[in-house]
């Protein structure tokens, strides 16, 4: 019998089953630059370096996926936005590219992701990663959800104002973004990604009143997911997911990601038999807590959500903070291998 692969482990978890151990992925994005000793800007400008960085981290941590993710801001470049780089953290979106003008927004049409040079480079990174891992590990693409992308297109104050004062234009922008989101995700799948993580933080009731999400957000997110020709993992940034989990599961996602401070056991209850649950580590405690705290957090997560399969341990924001020490990540990875192995019937041995 051949050795279990990372891809098999994740597929089993997606199917709600327990493989040999809990699959895990620590989303090291810009940390690839640190590992290779280059600047973040240089790293993110080079698909070759990004592939090397992802592979080097996978070798170091032994986790089950790689990602071509550049930044959420990269997607806004397709709408005329800019990316602002820093030496010590992930890039941000610059000034919002769209005007808060409802009539103009009602005429907006979705751009083609392939027309944006930064997204083209993302596809090159995806192809490089897919070729390098050769099906052994999951290549996890990413896209910003249609209801959350306007926070960068208009700025969050502008988007909230539009949602409340011109819901017709807000609904149109969300529809445009749903088309764009599906197209960008499908381009990544065609380039070799196996699944797409869609970030939709504004679905969280911590950020948006549920009635407005249901009226204007959920239809767009549902349309985007329906248009994506592969498994969609739905994440909420660091925003809590529990309050929206039951409704989010109706949108067609294959997995839900927990947010910071979420009750993992309750979320596992929502997801059981319906979707994979992803999460367990919160980014800021991970950055500052040290190796022992990371191991304790892994054990808590395994206890709360690991039994019986259907769980992938990861970090809740979708990006490990730049200041997180290597030792902390190595300790977390070690803890999953030590306490996350499955025995008979999907019981955790740890």
């Amino acid at each position, binding site marked *: 019998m051949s050795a279990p692969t990372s891809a098999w482990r994740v597929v089993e978890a997606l199917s709600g089953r327990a493989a040999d151990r809990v699959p895990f992925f620590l989303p090291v994005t810009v940390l690839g630059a640190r590992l290779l000793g280059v600047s973040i800007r240089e790293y993110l400008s080079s698909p070759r370096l990004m592939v090397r960085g992802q592979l080097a981290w996978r070798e170091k941590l032994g986790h089950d996926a790689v990602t071509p993710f550049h930044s959420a801001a990269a997607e806004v470049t397709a709408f005329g936005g800019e990316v602002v780089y820093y030496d010590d953290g992930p890039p941000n979106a610059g000034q919002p590219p769209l005007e808060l003008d409802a009539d103009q927004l009602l005429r907006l049409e979705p751009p083609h992701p392939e027309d944006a040079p930064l997204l083209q480079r993302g596809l090159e990174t995806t192809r490089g990663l897919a070729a390098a891992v050769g099906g052994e590990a999951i290549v996890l693409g990413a896209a910003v959800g249609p209801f959350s992308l306007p926070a960068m297109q208009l700025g*969050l104050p502008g988007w909230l104002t539009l949602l409340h004062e011109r819901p017709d234009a807000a609904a149109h922008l969300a529809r445009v973004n749903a088309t764009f989101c599906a197209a960008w995700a499908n381009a990544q799948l065609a380039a070799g990604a196996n699944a797409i993580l869609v970030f939709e933080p504004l679905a969280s009731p911590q*950020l948006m009143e549920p009635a407005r999400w249901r009226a204007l957000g959920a239809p767009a997110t549902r349309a985007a997911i329906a248009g994506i020709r592969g498994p969609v993992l739905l994440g909420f940034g660091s925003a809590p997911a529990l309050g929206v989990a039951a409704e989010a599961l109706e949108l067609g996602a294959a997995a839900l990601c927990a947010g910071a401070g979420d009750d993992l056991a309750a979320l596992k209850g929502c997801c059981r038999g319906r979707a994979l649950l992803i999460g367990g580590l919160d980014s800021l405690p991970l950055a500052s807590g040290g190796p022992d705290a990371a191991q304790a957090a892994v054990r808590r997560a395994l206890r709360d959500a690991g039994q019986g399969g259907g769980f992938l341990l990861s970090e809740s924001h979708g990006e490990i903070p730049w200041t997180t020490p290597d030792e902390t990540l190595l300790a977390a990875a070690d803890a999953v291998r030590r306490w996350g192995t499955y025995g008979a019937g999907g019981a955790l041995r740890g």
Partner: protein
Amino acid sequence: MTPDPAIGGYVEQLERAFLAVDLAAAREALSGAARAVGAGRALELVLVPSLDRVGDRWSGGTASLSQVYMAGRYAERLADELLPAAAPPDGALRVGVAVLEDQHLLGKRMVVAHLRAAGLAPIDLGDGVTAAVLAERAVEQRVDVLLVSTLMLRAALAVKELVGLLRQRGSAAPVVVGGAPFRLDPELWRAAGADACGLVAADAPRLALALGRRP
């Protein structure tokens, strides 16, 4: 003086209007309060407490950030309608506000709305500014207290540099920080060298007044 018992009714009415994101209803509630107790007292006794209540609901998980933001935006508009903003008089507390390092403006907008609703006249020191630029502007503007909004962890960590630069330039202005990193890591504001942390925008006027007037 004991406030008019009817004031409590206006506070509830305004809170309901804010939660429904209904500007017309909010205007009606505040106008009623202004007729009852005068414009200045209506801001103090009705507008500010109702904003506090919406902020408390967000902390307690029964309101969204979207409702808090829109309440602040409408409060600012209504305060302007009742008492148009004027330049701060000589001797008034000089409260600087800024977004450090990035373009996430929501927090600062909410803080400005709360400060203005509380009768303060915040001085805008910019968005996406570096620690060096912000320190320079704060010194130039002779701020008594500096309120700094952040969203990303790296911006929160840059507060330490900001505080160092302010002190190097001879400014003793207390620095109050706010934003997601400080809510998620309750000890981060101390590590960053700030003087206080606001967990919700409604904390801003209280902290500005308490720290800015410190001898």
